């Protein structure tokens, strides 16, 4: 089933306004008409009752008189009342008196009564011509209907126009959004001419634009970094191959060249694999967590791998604390390996690198702490960004492609955890926190 389209806001509003106005005005008009009609009716009844009193009075006066006198008197009483007719009959139906008629096609209302004093009783029928009142009422009704329709049309048109005017800022906004391109995302929407109701929308869209712009810039920078990281080994490979091919070389030399190229290729392969890993983490890949009886044991395997490197750097290493928890051991070891590798490279000689494992409230913190140069505060928030190097001209850039900490951050994310970093007074501590259920 297709969702119904909302259609034009202006037309819809105009339709509804017209309908509501029509209903409202119709009710008002109905009220006016009813009250008027009732008043007319009341006045007609009053007129009839007055006339009745007079007729009764005349009959009473003329009770002993002959019918001729009565007729005369009644004729006098009816003078000036062309809108009325009186018929008097005896009980047997014979007519005593009938006044001049009302044109037959006129609507009349009748009042029947028994003359109070007549003996024998006299039946009277008093008729009132109400056609004039009917005409007035009819004209009123027509006027009211016309006014209601006209009012509805005017309000509908007005509503439509108002909506069009009211939506002008939205059209302006829409034009602004349409003009946005991926590389002009930094140009935010101008909300100055917008009504208060739209201000939050403009603000939210602008926030979204800022985030998009930042992501776009990061992606852009990332692409440039990737290209750069891959270009360096590519340049070596191309140049080296070309030079090797320029002259006849003996097998040993060629073997050496090929071996060196293989190393470069392995490095490139590693960069690409790490980037794929990061992209998977970005797309929301989750770690497959299993019960880990001893985090210290997990760390020890990594420390053992680094033993030689640590010793060669003149360092010592220690694991502090332990915890049980849920984690993907392989990923956790990879994160720790990156952290220990970093710490080994940056630690002051003869200091101790500490792998600190702490159980906090619902979380396990794994940190690698080393003594070394304090990382200035401006670098700290960016440390986990891809290809970010606090020291732009680091000597071991060839070996470290700058994705190590980004991978640590990705592994933390894959565990639903986060990273942490602190550097002050020559002590740098970088690590990750992974949530772990209390029951474990």
């Amino acid at each position: 089933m297709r969702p119904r389209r909302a259609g034009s806001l202006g037309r819809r509003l105009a339709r509804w306004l017209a309908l509501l106005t029509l209903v409202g005005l119709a009710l008002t008009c109905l009220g006016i008409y009813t009250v008027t009609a009732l008043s007319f009716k009341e006045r007609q009844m009053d007129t009839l009752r007055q006339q009745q009193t007079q007729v009764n009075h005349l009959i009473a006066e003329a009770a002993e008189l002959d019918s001729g006198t009565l007729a005369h008197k009644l004729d006098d009483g009816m003078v000036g009342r062309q809108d009325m007719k009186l018929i008097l009959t005896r009980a047997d139906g014979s007519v005593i008196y009938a006044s001049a008629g009302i044109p037959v096609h006129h609507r009349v209302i009748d009042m029947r009564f028994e003359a109070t004093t007549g003996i024998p009783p006299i039946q009277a029928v008093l008729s009132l011509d109400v056609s004039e009142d009917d005409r007035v009422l009819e004209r009123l009704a027509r006027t009211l209907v016309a006014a209601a329709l006209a009012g509805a049309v005017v309000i509908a048109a007005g509503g439509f126009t108002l909506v069009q005017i009211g939506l002008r800022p939205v059209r302006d906004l829409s034009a602004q959004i349409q003009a946005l391109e991926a590389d002009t995302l930094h140009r935010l929407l101008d909300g100055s001419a917008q009504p208060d109701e739209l201000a939050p929308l403009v603000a939210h869209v602008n926030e979204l634009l800022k985030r998009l712009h930042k992501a776009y810039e990061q992606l852009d920078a990332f692409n440039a970094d990737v290209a750069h990281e891959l270009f360096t080994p590519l340049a070596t490979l191309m140049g080296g191959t070309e030079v090797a091919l320029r002259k006849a070389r003996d097998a040993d030399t060629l073997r050496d060249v090929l071996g060196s190229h293989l190393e470069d290729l392995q490095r490139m392969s590693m960069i690409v694999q790490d980037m794929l890993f990061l992209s998977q983490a970005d797309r929301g890949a989750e770690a497959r967590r299993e019960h880990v009886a001893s985090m210290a044991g997990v760390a020890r395997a990594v420390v053992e791998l680094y033993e030689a490197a640590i010793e060669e750097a003149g360092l010592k290493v220690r694991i502090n604390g332990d915890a049980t928890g849920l984690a993907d051991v392989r990923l956790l070891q990879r994160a720790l390996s990156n952290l220990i590798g970093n710490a080994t490279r940056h630690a002051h000689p003869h200091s101790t690198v500490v792998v600190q494992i702490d159980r906090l409230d619902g979380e396990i913190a794994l940190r690698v702490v080393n003594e070394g140069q304090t990382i200035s505060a401006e670098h700290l928030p960016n440390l986990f960004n891809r290809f970010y190097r606090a020291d732009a001209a680091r000597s071991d850039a060839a070996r470290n492609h700058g994705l190590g900490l980004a991978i640590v951050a990705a592994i933390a994310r894959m565990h639903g955890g986060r990273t942490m970093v602190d550097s002050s007074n020559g002590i740098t501590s970088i690590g990750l926190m992974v949530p772990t259920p209390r029951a474990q």
Partner: protein
Amino acid sequence: MKLLIVEDEAKLADYLRKGLSEEGYVIDVAANGIDGLHMASHGHYDLIVLDTMLPGIDGFGLLAALRQSKQTPVIMLTARHRIEDRVRGLKAGADDYLVKPFAFSELVARIEVLLRRAAGTAPAPDALVLCLGDLQVDLARRRATRAGQRIDLSAKEFQLLTLLLRRKGEVLSRTEIAEQVWDVNFDHGTNVIDVAVRRLRSKLDLPFERPLLHTVRGMGYVLEDRQS
């Protein structure tokens, strides 16, 4: 030993054929899934190297069809670095799994393991004392001597030396060394292995005239006595 390679990328298939032939295997190559399935079902192979992305029938389909009739060991190759693919491959009945790009030496090592497993033969029982030139390693007493001089080694250095010595003359990649000595299978910088080997070399070779531990650029390390 006869191996079937099902791989549609001609260059890759070519170098696999060349490399594996030189390792002493007889190699057939199929360039698509349909030929691959036909050859695998009707021919006799000791092992199949199977690419996942193939024209005709893909690797998973081929494997599923093959497993109806045969239990030939299969190593799958994939360009996709996804855990689901790995799980899917192993569930479909693959015996091992390699992600492209892989080191050729790693493929050879895994083929050997699978063939040994299929043949039901364990590796030859360890001798108690391993020798190479004037180097002697006593496994029982965990002692290494060279030209009669005791070499003082840490536990991991001793394991590293033993591994290199057991497979003397064979180039071992850094990945394999990390797996065999440190029992790690997470991705790590290869630098740590270089440092460990360098330290072993400083104790093993530096005090003596003839080096035994050699670096093969781009490949790894080999322990051999090159002058004898």
